[in-house]
């Protein structure tokens, strides 16, 4: 049996998405920027996709810029926003952001601009007083992820947005992991910029979007063309954009279905693990989390060894770290929560999707406990 529980890494393409994309990979191969209608007609499909993405985010269509994915969206938002006002070149972000944000922050810092990295609480949530301590008059942008990719912990972005706006700064959120899993609305939450990536919610890889609130002008990240009103150069990835649109449409539908019961399956998995694997601890257990993500620490059991045995049984999960070069460090997300290095090296992440079935969860609950026990038996850390 093959059980894919690594949906925070990437997801399968929904059949509806695939069907919608196919014509654009075959007969309708035109360039939407062309003069002839064979190409230019494709603009209608692109605009239809834009409407769907806007609907998912509670935005207006003209506020959506298509990108190559979450990384480009994050880079565009961060590197752009700090250049808007020379008096406000500073950035404040969070210690457990995705590297797409953290490395952009490093880049901003290397240019001599003030960068503050907020701490997290032991439950994996944003430490609000730490955030406040970094926000100053110089802060041009505050960027806080909507939910963490490893723990699934949901951040208080509305409050963070308020703090940013009080200081006259813009607010960006990396919603790559959150979108489609929890309801979100850029107007209600007062968000200025928001990043998403199609392949995290059953769309294709290599396409995403950046919401930029009307009235905010940031410089483009990709240069060399007039596409997206000059905001993002490069020939339209028509098939990808259409796929993203359909994925967004499906996400709205499944959100209305209370996440398709994924939350219940996660609960079944978590309670089963806690019951059958004594000593297991769920990271951020007390915080609000995405209904599809659980990172579990199996005391004394090195995660890569466990993943290897699970892989043999057909179960795909992930860990925050990998012992590959001998220089690999444990998950910076978990250590930021105060979890020590040894325990951080015991973390396994289970991330479900709406395609996950109860039978798959039961299979994991049957296979996992003896694997954990077997490795504990030979571990000097187990006692």
């Amino acid at each position, binding site marked *: 049996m093959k059980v894919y529980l690594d949906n925070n890494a990437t997801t399968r393409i929904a059949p509806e998405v695939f069907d919608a994309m196919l014509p654009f990979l075959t007969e309708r191969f035109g360039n939407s920027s062309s003069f002839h209608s064979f190409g230019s007609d494709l603009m209608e499909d692109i605009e239809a996709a834009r409407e769907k993405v806007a609907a998912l985010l509670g935005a207006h269509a003209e506020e959506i810029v298509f990108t190559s994915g979450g990384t480009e969206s994050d880079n565009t938002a961060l590197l752009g926003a700090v250049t808007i006002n020379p008096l406000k070149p500073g950035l404040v972000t969070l210690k457990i952001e995705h590297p797409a944000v953290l490395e952009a922050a490093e880049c901003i810092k290397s240019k001599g601009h003030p960068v503050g990295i907020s701490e997290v609480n032991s439950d994996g949530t944003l430490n609000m007083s730490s955030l406040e301590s970094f926000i100053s008059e110089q802060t041009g942008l505050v960027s806080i992820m909507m939910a963490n990719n490893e723990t699934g912990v949901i951040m208080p972005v509305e409050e963070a947005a308020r703090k940013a706006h009080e200081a006259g700064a813009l607010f960006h959120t990396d919603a790559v992991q959150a979108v489609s899993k929890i309801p979100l609305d850029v107007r209600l939450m007062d968000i200025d910029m928001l990043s998403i990536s199609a392949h995290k919610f059953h769309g294709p890889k290599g396409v995403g979007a950046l919401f930029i609130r009307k009235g905010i002008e940031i410089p483009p990240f990709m240069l060399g063309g007039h596409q997206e009103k000059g905001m993002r150069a490069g020939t339209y990835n028509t098939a990808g954009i259409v796929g993203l649109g359909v994925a967004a449409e499906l996400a709205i539908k499944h959100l209305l279905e209370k996440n398709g019961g994924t939350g219940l399956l996660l609960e079944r998995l978590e309670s089963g693990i806690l019951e059958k694997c004594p000593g297991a601890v769920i990271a951020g257990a007390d915080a609000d989390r995405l209904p599809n993500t659980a990172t579990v620490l199996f005391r*004394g*059991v*090195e995660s*890569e*060894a466990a993943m*290897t*045995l699970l*892989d*043999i049984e057909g179960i795909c999960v992930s860990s925050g770290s990998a*012992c*590959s*070069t*001998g*220089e*690999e460090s*444990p998950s910076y997300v978990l250590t930021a929560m105060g979890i020590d*290095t*040894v325990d951080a*090296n015991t973390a396994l992440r289970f991330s479900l999707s709406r395609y996950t079935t109860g039978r798959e969860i039961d299979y994991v609950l049957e296979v996992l406990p003896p694997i954990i026990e077997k490795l504990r*038996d*030979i*571990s*000097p*850390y187990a006692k």
Partner: protein
Amino acid sequence: MWKYSEKLMDHFMNPRNTGQLLNPDGHSEVGSPQCGDVMTLDIKVDDEDRIAEIRFMTFGCAGAIAAASALTEIAKGKTLKEALCISNDQIVGFLGGMPEEKYHCSVMGHEALSMAIDDFRHRRDNTSEHLDSILSEMPADLAAAVGNGSIRIEHVHPMRVCVRFSGGDEGTVKAVLEKKLRKLAGKIVKVIVNR
């Protein structure tokens, strides 16, 4: 997933010589600070200086567990001198190869073994020093038991010593030596008296 050989996977899934020894002659605990792996190793050494029993515990990836298992298989029955010559290449070869990025996993086993042997030698030196000091001081009760005979050390092991004795009362010699060694070493050291 790493591409592991069949033999390596066998040693990972069915590791040999796991666990701990009740009263080991040598014990070590080593860690790899880079990747957080930890390993413990226990050995029992016979009177020919051969590794008679060996047990390990590992917190580490598949490569680290298999390498530790392979090391114990290679080391078992070898003299301490021979065991110290076991190389990482030998472990990797025994396992039918290993991804290059995982070579560092096999280093830990080698370090654990040399430290366990060091620990054994240290314990033996301790016992040896205590025995030497008893025999050179020759306290009255021991002198009485030895009488006109002679006594010399034949072999020292951390847990047992062997002496060659000629003369009168070997039972008393054994009892007196054991009592004094116990007092000095703080543990039971068995005395074997050969004639």
